């Protein structure tokens, strides 16, 4: 029992790395989702094709495999080794960016056609159309699925334990051989931490959703049953 404070503080040490990986991963995901999502909607087919290939490859292969590949194979091919945290953020971003691209694409397409037509009638350029009319409306639609995606990403940070990035799961595994009797405390602490982080993310996203909906002058829509469409879990 007296090991518990040590266990908890030890695992908390991993919180920084988990948070860094998660935030970095989320940032990269957002960027890639926007770029690839809009590219999927481009009228030019080479742009669409490139985005489609990216999305299918990263959605179609396992994240763990991608992690191993980036960390163990890439150095052999290009000559330099990626720092674990960086490799982790890269994989998290590339993988979830592919799913995010579909979310962006779906949300933009869900904006009623009349909005496009109104923007064209006002003689806005394509960029202005997208930035000032379409995206703000699509934004609110995107938030609930992105909430789910970011929580998936958070859960995936645990995979970085395979490449020693110093995050929560790895800290736990380092303690197991030493504190065998207190295994329940080790995993319990880890699980509670992840749960709290997930709640943090959801709270943030819901606040964002309310703010965005207010700017559009409407109450946030009840979450459509995207679950039926099979989403990202």
């Amino acid at each position, binding site marked *: 029992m007296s090991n518990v404070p040590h266990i908890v503080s030890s695992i908390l040490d991993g919180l920084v790395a988990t948070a860094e990986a998660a935030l970095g991963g989320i940032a990269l995901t957002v960027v890639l989702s926007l770029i690839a999502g809009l590219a999927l909607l481009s009228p030019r087919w080479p742009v669409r094709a490139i985005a489609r290939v990216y999305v*299918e*490859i990263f*959605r*179609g*292969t*396992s*994240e*763990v*495999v*991608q992690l*191993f*590949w980036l960390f*163990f*194979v890439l150095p*052999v*091919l290009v000559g330099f080794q990626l720092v674990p945290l960086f490799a982790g953020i890269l994989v998290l971003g590339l993988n979830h960016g592919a799913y995010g691209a579909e979310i962006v694409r779906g949300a933009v397409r869900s904006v009623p056609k009349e909005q496009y037509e109104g923007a064209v009638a006002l003689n806005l350029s394509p960029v202005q159309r997208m930035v000032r009319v379409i995206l703000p409306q699509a934004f609110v639609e995107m938030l609930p699925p992105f909430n789910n995606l970011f*929580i998936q990403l958070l*859960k*995936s*940070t*645990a*995979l970085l*334990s*395979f490449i020693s990035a110093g995050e929560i*799961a790895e800290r*736990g*595994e380092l303690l*197991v051989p030493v504190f065998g009797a207190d*295994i*329940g405390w080790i*995993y319990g602490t*880890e*699980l509670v931490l*992840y*749960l709290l982080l*997930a*709640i943090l993310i959801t709270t943030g996203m819901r606040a964002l959703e309310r703010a965005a909906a207010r700017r559009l002058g409407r109450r946030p829509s009840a979450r459509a*049953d995207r*679950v*039926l*469409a*099979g*989403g990202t*879990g």
Partner: protein
Amino acid sequence: MNWDWQAAADSIPLLLKGLLVTVELTVLGSLVGYVLGLVLALLRRSGIPVLSQAVWLFIEFVRSTPLLIQVFVLYYLVPPTTGFKMSAFVTGVVALGVHYSTYAAEVYRAGIEAVPKGQWEAAVALNLPRSRVWTAVVLPQAIPRVLPALGNYTISMFKETPLLLAIGVLDVLNRAKEVGAETFRVVEPYTLAGVLFLLVSLPASLLVRRLERRRA
């Protein structure tokens, strides 16, 4: 380029053995997950507040925490406390099943709620026994609707199985790691492992998308 075709070819038999294990894990995990998921969904609707809440808590907890940690809990924590030992493979199936049952429970819930209220009312009006209302009217309408979503989750499960290498399950990735350790060539086995995933998951996704479209 640093690619050795011979090394690639040599690694294939072992990788395929691993792929078989991966597929087995996915199939069994899905079975466990989708049956347990239905149980959870029905318990949520049981009308007994304590039970309903407990199930909800369980679902949220399992859904929001990493599968990897849940695998460790099942493999390292459960045996010493309960004396019940499971092989790595079985642990994997149980972990995948329980984790995905929480996703499936949500899917079933949405499917059940999509059955028009009039169907329930007609069943009550005809005085059908409660069990028949579920088995003859509601579930036959709810389940076909959610099959595409369940299909997508199976594909997700398929792609998550490699993390089981952490407890020694001999799936594709673990076999690739073996080959890499023995031959000191990592490029071919790991790349091929990725390709194998693509070769299975892409057609599967297309199939599910076609199923989705046919229902729409």
